[in-house]
């Protein structure tokens, strides 16, 4: 059955029945599901979910690059960015195993060790604070590892969920056409006419702080962007011959939409969503910095920076400086990987 499609599609980004398509789909679902488990309060330490998450991320990367590795790794910056992204992801996923202390277990903290500069040791010399401590005697390095986990998981989950919603709305708008399309796209225009930070601030002002709330706010902020992009893709894909062929075969509408239209609308989104994860991390950290983001019990990098900010002017720079370096490292490496991906997958879009 797949033969006529592969010849008619011009050129098919994802031929139906491609095994990589199933692998990517499974990997994406695995990432989303394991993140959902890890984001719930008591699931944060579940080892199987974290292994699934790491495997899923690696599979997604492999699925994206298959056959195009040489083009992707065409300069030193691609290697550096990929390596640092992988390293940071592993650090975040295995934060509980790697970090010297659990910064949110109050029994492990000693207020006497508060505001120690980098390199100092604790009272009985059993532990060195390589990046110093905060005002409650928390090891900054451990705080960063835990914070990295919060920042990354919130942003990746929100981006995946927003993408899923955006894809469904966008495809539905394109397929239904007419009045449905017009109404949905007016809603999208309406939302996109305001900058995301403003919308997110507004939502968080109404919701209050919380991990679940910031995830919801970040989803609401982003979905419209995907919906508009997917609608555009779907409209141009729907005119192509392989859709006509599928109709000619007498396939039911749902099979054409889910089996043929949808898989071909997603690839252009991958580059966007990579960069979007970086934007989401920055947005989340800005909101947390402003005090309307994650709760104090589960600080992200932005909240760590905000906590240390008060001590900055008195010269105790390490409390917000190092979380900031970690934030910059993760965002810059995602952006660089996204830049390379865009050049590799969609040369048309490169600026």
């Amino acid at each position, binding site marked *: 059955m797949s033969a006529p499609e592969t010849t008619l599609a011009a050129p098919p980004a994802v031929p139906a029945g491609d095994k990589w398509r199933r692998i990517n789909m499974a990997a994406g679902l695995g990432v989303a599901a394991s993140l959902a488990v890890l984001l719930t309060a008591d699931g944060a330490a579940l080892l199987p979910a974290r292994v699934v998450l790491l495997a899923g991320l690696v599979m997604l990367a492999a699925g994206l690059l298959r056959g195009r590795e040489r083009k992707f790794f065409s300069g030193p910056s691609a290697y550096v960015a990929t390596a640092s992204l992988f390293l940071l992801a592993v650090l975040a996923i295995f934060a509980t195993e790697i970090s010297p202390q659990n910064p949110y277990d109050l029994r492990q903290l000693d207020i006497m060790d508060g505001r120690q500069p980098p390199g100092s040791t604790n009272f009985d010399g059993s532990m060195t604070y390589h990046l110093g401590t905060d005002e409650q005697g928390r090891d900054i390095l451990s705080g960063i590892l835990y914070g990295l986990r919060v920042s990354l998981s919130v942003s990746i989950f929100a981006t995946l969920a927003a993408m899923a919603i955006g894809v469904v709305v966008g495809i539905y708008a394109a397929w239904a056409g007419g009045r449905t399309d017009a109404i949905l796209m007016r809603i999208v225009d309406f939302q996109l006419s305001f900058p995301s930070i403003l919308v997110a601030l507004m939502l968080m002002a109404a919701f209050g702080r919380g991990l679940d709330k910031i995830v919801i706010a970040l989803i609401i902020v982003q979905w419209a962007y995907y919906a508009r992009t997917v609608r555009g893709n779907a409209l141009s894909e729907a005119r192509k011959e392989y859709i006509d062929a599928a109709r000619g075969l007498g396939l039911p509408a749902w099979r054409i939409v889910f089996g043929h239209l949808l898989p071909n609308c997603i690839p252009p989104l991958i580059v966007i969503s990579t960069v979007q994860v970086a934007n989401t991390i920055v947005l989340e*950290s800005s909101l947390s910095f402003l005090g309307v983001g994650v709760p104090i019990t589960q600080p992200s990098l932005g909240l760590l920076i905000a906590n240390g900010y008060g001590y*900055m002017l008195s010269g105790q720079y390490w409390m917000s400086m190092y979380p900031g370096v970690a934030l910059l490292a993760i965002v810059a490496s995602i*952006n660089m990987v996204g830049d390379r991906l865009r050049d590799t997958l969609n040369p048309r879009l490169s600026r």
Partner: protein
Amino acid sequence: MLVFLLRRLAQSVFVLIAMMIVVFFGVYMIGNPVDILISPDATPAEIDETMARFGFDQPVYIQFLKFIGNALQGDLGRSFVHGEPAVQLILSYMPATLELAVMGLLFSVLIGVPLGVYAGYKADRWQGRAIMTGSIFGFSLPNFWVGMLLILIFAVELQWLPSTGRGETVEVLGLRLSIFTADGLQHMLLPALTLALYKASLVTRLARAGTQEALVQDYVKFARAKGLSETRILVVHVLKNIMIPIITVLGLELGSMIAFAVVTETVFAWPGMGKLLIDSILTLDRPVIVSYLMLTVIIFIVINFTVDVIYTLLDPRVRVKGGTA
């Protein structure tokens, strides 16, 4: 044209009404403001009395109609904290934000255009690549962290510039501005630079793309054939042609500058309306939050409307598209 204008105006009014509904239900319906307004050990009678005074005992639609009615008269309630009418309060904070945003735009052009033109001129050389990689860092650096680093370097370590506040202000045309005093400018330098950084990388990328396109055009070949120096070609001929799209984009970005100023103002304790918004969110000062959101929405609607109208005047094809969309 008139039909287009009317239709666009009707759209704007519709957006405004939609935002009013969203803001009202977002801010007024979630949580109970009475819990914040009165002490927890108040008697039920006192609670009822406060509820009645603020009109919370009435059905939702009556409250909503009252809100709309008052809003149309420019009354969005009094600030719980400052005791002033919220709209007036915000308007008194607005000049600080506007001058910061305008200064930020200016900086982003002054930084971004020269870098972008140079990167476009040396597109395949290491200089061009270095600038492009640098612009990724410009995109990636979180606004608030840049501000903190600048404070750490220039205010704490070097002690060249003040770290917070607005400095000396003068009254110009009834607005309190700090652009016109030396002290005010010193205070503005760091926040404006922080705000400008993201946009500067955007401008760098735009200017680079524009320069690359312009350099292969006939007028550049002609200028070269005439024997003009490369500097003169870049600064006079290329620059003139790439500035139009850049200015258009920046005009659109003025609104987002105002929104992003929320973060910058918090870092630098700049007394603008963004800082006021954050303080109000933290103290649950609802009338101020609502007024800020409504005013910002109006600013955005005005910007979008103006841009659409100017586009239509410049490019009549948009009108046809606007009719169907």
